[in-house]
C-alpha cells in the first residue's frame, strides 16, 4: 500500500512536467556553423536564451536541401527556422513565408532587398555576413616588394611578394584552400576572374580569363603543394607552413585568436578590372510547413537582437547585419578583420561579386565547373584555352538548364546568363 502511495505521489509530481516536455524544441536547420565547435557555440552561447529551447543542426548543403524538399513535398514538417547563405535560399521561394511583420530596423536597405529573392515579399531576413580576406604572418612582411601597400595590393605585387618569400626561405609559403572541403571555387568566382574580366560567368573563356589563369599559374608556382590538402587556412598559418593565405574569415579566425600578435589581415588584391571580392550574406527563413509559425517568427526576431548578433559573431565569426555597439572584449580575430573588411569594401576600386544565385540545387555543379577548371589547368597542366572552351560549354548548358539570370558583377540578363 505504501508503495502504491509513493508511486501515486511521484506521478502527481511528474504531471506538471509533461506539458513542458510536449512543447517541442524549435528545429534550426542551417548550412552555417557546421563545425562541431561552432554548432556547440551556437547552442550554448547564442540560442540558450530562447524560451522553449532550440535544436540547432548545422548540415552539409546536400542533406540540408534534401530534408527541406521532403518536408515541402509532404506538406508538413518539423523544421522551425532555416539558416542558409543567400544562394542556398534562392530556389526555395515557393516554400517560404513572408517575414515582413518582423522588425528589421537597422538593417541596410540593399541587404534587405536581397531577402525578397526577386519577389515582392520578404522571404528571408539577413542573419549574419562575412567575406574572404588575405592573412599573412608578420615574418612575411619584410619581403613585401618595395612600393607595395599591404592595404592596396595588386595580383602582380602579391606574386612578387610570394616569390620573394619563396626565394628567401627556400619553400613556397603562399597557401590556398584547395582541399576537398576548401573554398577554392569562391576565389575563382568572386576574386580572380572578376578582377581580370569584370565577370564571373559571361567572360568565362575570354582572353582576359586566359590571362587570369596565367596569373594564378604564376602564383601557384610559389604556393605550397600541400594546398590541395588544406580546407581551413588557419591551421597551416598556425603551424608556420604557410605565411600568406587567402580564405573565408571564419576559416582564418583561429589563427588570429590563438596568436593575435603574429598575423595581419588585409584586403584581397586588385586586378585590371578592380578589387573584386565576394560578400557572403546568410539569411533566416521560415518554411510554410513550419510546425509553429509564431514560435519560428519569435526565433527569427530573437536572432536579430543586437545581443544575439554579437553572440553569433563570437560563436561563428560572422559579422552582424546591423550596426551594433561592439564590446571592447571582442576576440582578436574580429578586431583584425573589421578594419580589413572596411578597407576592402570601401576601396575606390572595390568590385563586389555576389555568391551565385538563382541556381537552386545546381549550385554544387556550378562550383564544380570552377574547381574542374582549376584542377585541369593548374594541377593537370592542360592548355588553358582548350579547358576554358570545354568548361564554357558545360557552364552554358548549366545556366540554360537552371534558367538563372546574371548576377553582379555580370550585367543583368533577360534569360539565362549568357556565356560568350
Amino acid at each position, binding site marked *: 500500500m505504501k508503495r502504491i502511495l509513493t508511486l501515486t505521489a511521484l506521478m502527481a509530481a511528474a504531471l506538471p512536467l509533461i506539458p513542458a516536455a510536449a512543447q517541442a524544441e524549435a528545429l534550426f536547420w542551417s548550412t552555417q556553423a557546421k563545425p562541431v565547435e561552432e554548432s556547440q557555440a551556437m547552442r550554448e552561447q547564442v540560442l540558450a536564451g530562447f524560451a522553449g529551447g532550440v535544436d540547432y543542426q548545422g548540415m*552539409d*548543403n*546536400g*542533406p540540408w*536541401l534534401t530534408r527541406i524538399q521532403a518536408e515541402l513535398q509532404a506538406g508538413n514538417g518539423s523544421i522551425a527556422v532555416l539558416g542558409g547563405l543567400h544562394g542556398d535560399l534562392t530556389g526555395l521561394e515557393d516554400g517560404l513565408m513572408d517575414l515582413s511583420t518582423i522588425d528589421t530596423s537597422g538593417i541596410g536597405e540593399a541587404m534587405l532587398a536581397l531577402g525578397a529573392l526577386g519577389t515582392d515579399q520578404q522571404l528571408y531576413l539577413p542573419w549574419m555576413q562575412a567575406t574572404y580576406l588575405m592573412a599573412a604572418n608578420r615574418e612575411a612582411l619584410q619581403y613585401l616588394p618595395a612600393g607595395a601597400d599591404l592595404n592596396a595590393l595588386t595580383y602582380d605585387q602579391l606574386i612578387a611578394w610570394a616569390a620573394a618569400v619563396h626565394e628567401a626561405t627556400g*619553400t613556397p609559403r603562399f597557401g590556398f584552400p584547395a*582541399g*576537398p572541403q576548401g573554398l577554392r571555387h569562391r576565389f575563382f568566382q568572386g576574386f580572380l576572374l572578376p578582377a581580370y574580366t569584370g565577370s564571373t560567368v559571361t567572360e568565362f573563356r575570354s582572353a582576359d580569363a586566359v590571362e587570369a589563369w596565367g596569373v594564378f599559374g604564376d602564383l601557384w608556382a610559389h604556393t*605550397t*603543394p*600541400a594546398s*590541395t*590538402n588544406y580546407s581551413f587556412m588557419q591551421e597551416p598559418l598556425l*603551424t608556420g*607552413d604557410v605565411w600568406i593565405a587567402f580564405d573565408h574569415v571564419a576559416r582564418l579566425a583561429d589563427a588570429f585568436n590563438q596568436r593575435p600578435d603574429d598575423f595581419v589581415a588585409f584586403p584581397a588584391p586588385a586586378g585590371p578590372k578592380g578589387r573584386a571580392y565576394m560578400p557572403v550574406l546568410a539569411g533566416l527563413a521560415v518554411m510554410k510547413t513550419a510546425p509553429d509559425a509564431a514560435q519560428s517568427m519569435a526565433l527569427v526576431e530573437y536572432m536579430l537582437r543586437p545581443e544575439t548578433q554579437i553572440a553569433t559573431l563570437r560563436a561563428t565569426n560572422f559579422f552582424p547585419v546591423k550596426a551594433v555597439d561592439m564590446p571592447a572584449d571582442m576576440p582578436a580575430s574580429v578586431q583584425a578583420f573589421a578594419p580589413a573588411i572596411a578597407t576592402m569594401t570601401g576601396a575606390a576600386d572595390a568590385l563586389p561579386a555576389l555568391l551565385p544565385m538563382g541556381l537552386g*540545387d*545546381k*549550385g*554544387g*555543379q556550378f562550383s*564544380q565547373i570552377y574547381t*574542374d577548371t582549376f*584542377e*585541369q589547368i593548374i*594541377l593537370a597542366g592542360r592548355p588553358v584555352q582548350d579547358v576554358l572552351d*570545354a568548361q564554357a560549354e558545360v557552364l552554358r548548358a548549366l545556366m540554360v538548364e537552371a534558367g538563372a539570370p546574371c548576377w553582379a558583377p555580370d550585367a543583368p540578363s533577360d534569360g539565362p546568363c549568357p556565356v560568350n
Partner: protein
Amino acid sequence: MPRALPYLLLLPATLFLGVFFLYPFLNVAWDSITRGGEMTLANYQRMASHWKFSTAFWNTLFLAALVVPIQLAMALTMASIVTRLEKGRSSILYIFAIPLGISDLAAGLIWLAIFEQSGFLNSMLYGLGVIERPILFLSYQNPVVILIAIVLAEVWRATAIMMVILVAGMGLIPKEYGEAAEVFGASRWQRFIRVTLPMLKPSLQTALILRVILAFEVFAVVMALGGTQFPVLMSETYNWQFVMQDRGVAAAYAMVILGISIAFTLVILRLLHVPKEARI
C-alpha cells in the same frame, strides 16, 4: 504445414531484401535512365563526358588489379600458417582478424595519421635524422605515393576477410589427400599447388568474389588518403549525388559499378568452376 515451414522461415529475409535492396535498386536503375521524367541516356552521356570519368574508372580497376592479387597471396599464406599451427591457433587467428573490426574510414584515418605531413612516418624519419623537414607525401604531385598508401591501407584492412574464408575452406579438405601425396614423395610446395589449391577452389571463389566486389566499391580509404586527388567510381558517385546534386548521373555511376561487379563475378565463377561430381 511442415512442407511450407522452410518458405515461411525464409519469408522475413526475403521481405527484408525486397524492401531494402531490390526496391531501392530498381529505383536507382530507373533514375539512371530517366531525366526530368523522360527515358533517356543523357545521364550516361553526361557521366562519360565528364573529364574525371575515365580516370575514376581506370583508377578503380587498377586499384583492384593491384590490391586483390596481393591480398590473395597474403591470405593464402596466412591461412596456411593458421591451419598448420598446433598451439595458439585461435590467438593468431584473432590477431590476424583485428583489422576486420575497424571500419574502413577509421582504417583510412589511421593510415592518414601515418603519412600526413605531421604524421608518424615524418616524425620518425625526422627523429632519426633522415630528413631535415617533414616531407609532403600525399601531394597531388606524387600520385604514386597516394596509390601506395591506399594499397597499403586496403591490404591491411581487408586481407583478413579472405583469410577467414580460406581458413574455413582449408579445414574442410580431408587430410588423406595430403598424406597420400606425401607418401608418393610430393614436396610441401607440390602438395600446396597440386592438392590444397584445387581442393580450395570453392572457398577461393567465394573469397575472390567478395573481395573483388568490395574493391570496386572502395571509397572511405581513398577519400581519407587521396581526397579529390585520386578519383574512383564510388567517390565520383558520392560527388555527383551530394556535391553536384545530380541524382541521375550518380545513379549512372552506381550502375557502372554494378555492371563491372557482375562481369567480374561471372568471370570468377567461370574460371574457378568446380564440376558437381568433383566436389568434396
